[in-house]
């Protein structure tokens, strides 16, 4: 028994109205793609943001090496700022959706860079054989699992810090963005160091 499929996912009118008035508090993480659910005309798609972020990172690397990573870090949050600058997004929900869309963009980059990093670790493990030392690939996996738990606990704290108002949704989303981007940039640094 399935309902006819709509071409675009829609929120039930009541939920949409409640969301717009800030009465519904979303969980901090929100499912991926939530940002685009009913807001596709106001919030750039994560894939669009991702392309802009990659261009920003390339420009930062081209401009003199960026040894301390400050140039790359300056690419974090630009898309959210531009998104929030649109008048129609200047609501708690709009700001949260902007930050979560950029979080999703960085998450896609994180997944992109994870693959060669993991392949690198596997290659090292294969080359060194059973030496009795801890292999790198499972440790990488474990570190990533631990990072994910940390990110969510840390952002739950940021969310709690904001107190009872709906602004905490923005805090939680901004935290998700900041931590996901930092992790993705760490992967990128490591890839640059590894051949």
């Amino acid at each position, binding site marked *: 028994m399935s309902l006819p499929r709509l071409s675009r996912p829609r929120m039930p009118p009541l939920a949409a109205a409640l969301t717009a008035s800030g009465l519904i508090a979303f969980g901090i993480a929100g499912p991926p793609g939530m940002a685009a659910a009913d807001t596709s005309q106001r919030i750039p798609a994560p894939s669009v943001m991702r392309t802009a972020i990659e261009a920003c990172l390339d420009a930062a690397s081209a401009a003199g090496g960026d040894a301390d990573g400050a140039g790359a870090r300056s690419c974090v949050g630009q898309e959210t700022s531009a998104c929030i600058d649109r008048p129609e997004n200047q609501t708690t929900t709009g700001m949260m959706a902007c930050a979560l869309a950029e979080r999703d963009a960085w998450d896609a980059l994180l997944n992109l860079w994870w693959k060669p990093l993991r392949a690198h670790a596997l290659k*090292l493990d294969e080359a060194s054989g059973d030496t009795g030392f801890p292999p790198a690939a499972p440790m990488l996996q474990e570190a990533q699992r*631990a990072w994910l738990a940390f990110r969510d606990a*840390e952002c739950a704290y940021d969310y709690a810090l904001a107190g009872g108002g709906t602004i905490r949704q923005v805090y939680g989303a901004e935290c998700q963005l900041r931590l996901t981007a930092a992790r993705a940039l760490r992967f990128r640094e490591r890839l640059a160091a590894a051949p």
Partner: protein
Amino acid sequence: MQRLSRHPAPPARPRAIARRAPAPRLSRGPTALMLASLALAAGLAALFAAPPARADAIDDSRFIGQCVESHLSQGTAAAEAACLGLIALPCAEAPLGDPAEDQSPTQAREAAESACLARETAAWDSLMSEWWPDLLASAVSLDARDDRQSASSDALRRAQRAWESFAEAECGYAYALWGRSDFRNVAKADCEMRTLARRAIQLRGQTGLD
């Protein structure tokens, strides 16, 4: 990976140049190995902290603490750029004594670098212990307000526990990346110092907010 100073051997190089017999595989795997090395590091730190070196350890953490406090108004990234390595870098540049008989010059240098990094880690660790009560107190006072509906102090404790697990796993990975190369000890010590320092700076930046 950021490294302490110019170093040979990126992780991709063949790692089979074992100067020592590999350590016996511990039945409990990497965690036991890491715990053992952490215990060793803690033992060394305790050794360095014993009189008459104790005054130096206090000076280290004061020095770093002042660096953080004076840069934090420009943001955590500025404080990181200014303060990470403040103890370890000059320490590692000090001339080495004669290497022990069974040590190559490289091994002696790496051992000195690991010790310098551990010395800075100890300084960050004591700053973290010094700053933590203030941070927790801010969270508790936020929670005590009537209009707050959140338990930020509990969330802070949970976040810190999650961070500790993450730091341990992250530096276990940094260690594992170097296989049996002796550089693994420097890589791990470097990771521990930086991960802890960034966390301490970030938490310090939150104290007194609101």
